[in-house]
């Protein structure tokens, strides 16, 4: 039975729940928009990294360099699209 619940995955799950609770504090506690966004950015990206490494086994296979490179490229494109759009359309530069 024990082997069906490997420690790293159980810890990963508990950590993901903890990060969710921390993110929810943004709603339940009274904090400024800036502080709230910093908390959310930290919890969301940590959570994403956790899923990638613990649950998607990104670092385990011989081709893990390619997997990471592909993922970093995807993240770069995502950030460029989101912040580029915000820069041009919302922040007014």
């Amino acid at each position, binding site marked *: 039975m024990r082997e069906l619940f490997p420690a790293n995955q159980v810890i990963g799950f508990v950590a993901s729940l903890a990060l969710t609770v921390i993110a*929810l504090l943004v*709603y339940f506690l009274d904090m400024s928009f800036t502080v709230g966004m910093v908390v959310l950015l930290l919890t969301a990206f940590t959570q994403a990294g956790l899923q990638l490494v613990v649950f998607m086994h990104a670092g385990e296979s011989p081709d893990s360099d390619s997997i990471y490179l592909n993922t970093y490229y995807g993240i770069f494109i995502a950030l460029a699209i989101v912040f580029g759009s915000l820069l041009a359309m919302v922040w007014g530069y």
Partner: protein
Amino acid sequence: MTTEHSTPMEYSTETNALNIIGFWVFIGAEIALFATLFAAYFIMEGRIADGPSGGHLFVISTLMIQTFVLLTSSFTIGLGVNAMRLGRKGAALTFFIITLVLGAGFVGVEIYEFYEYVHEGLNLQTSAFSAALFTLLGTHGAHVSFGLFWGIGIIIQIVKYGFTPRTANKTFIFSLYWHFLDVVWIFIFSFVYLKGMM
């Protein structure tokens, strides 16, 4: 491989290894797809016309249920892949079925939520905000719904053929897809819902 035993079955042939890296490339493209939808949402967020705003619509209880259900399903499918690597077919199938039941629960809550939004006077044509919101949430929900059918197909194949290099590979790739949807949800949870309710 750095797993304790030997090379897991899902990596056991060259085709299998290529299938997995190929799926990662697909996930890269999906990241870009969702990035465009997030960008559109962030631009349109404040343009609510005569309709309700996000802060007015979003409900913390359904959000917490959806998040907990999807996080748990991501955990159970991870356990399913672990059981598969141990060669425990029954346990793996149990975990996969739990995963799909949780996934169906998530989609159910999302449908209920959309129903509530429409009752509050928010539909696809209400405002720029509503169009961007429904497109982003709907694309994610459609992915999860598609995943339910894919998962059922995977379960049928495991029941029929057991774990072979081929079915193990398909199962592992499906688990990547499912975890990825959980990652997307984390960003929706944080930057659509919680940001909107702050």
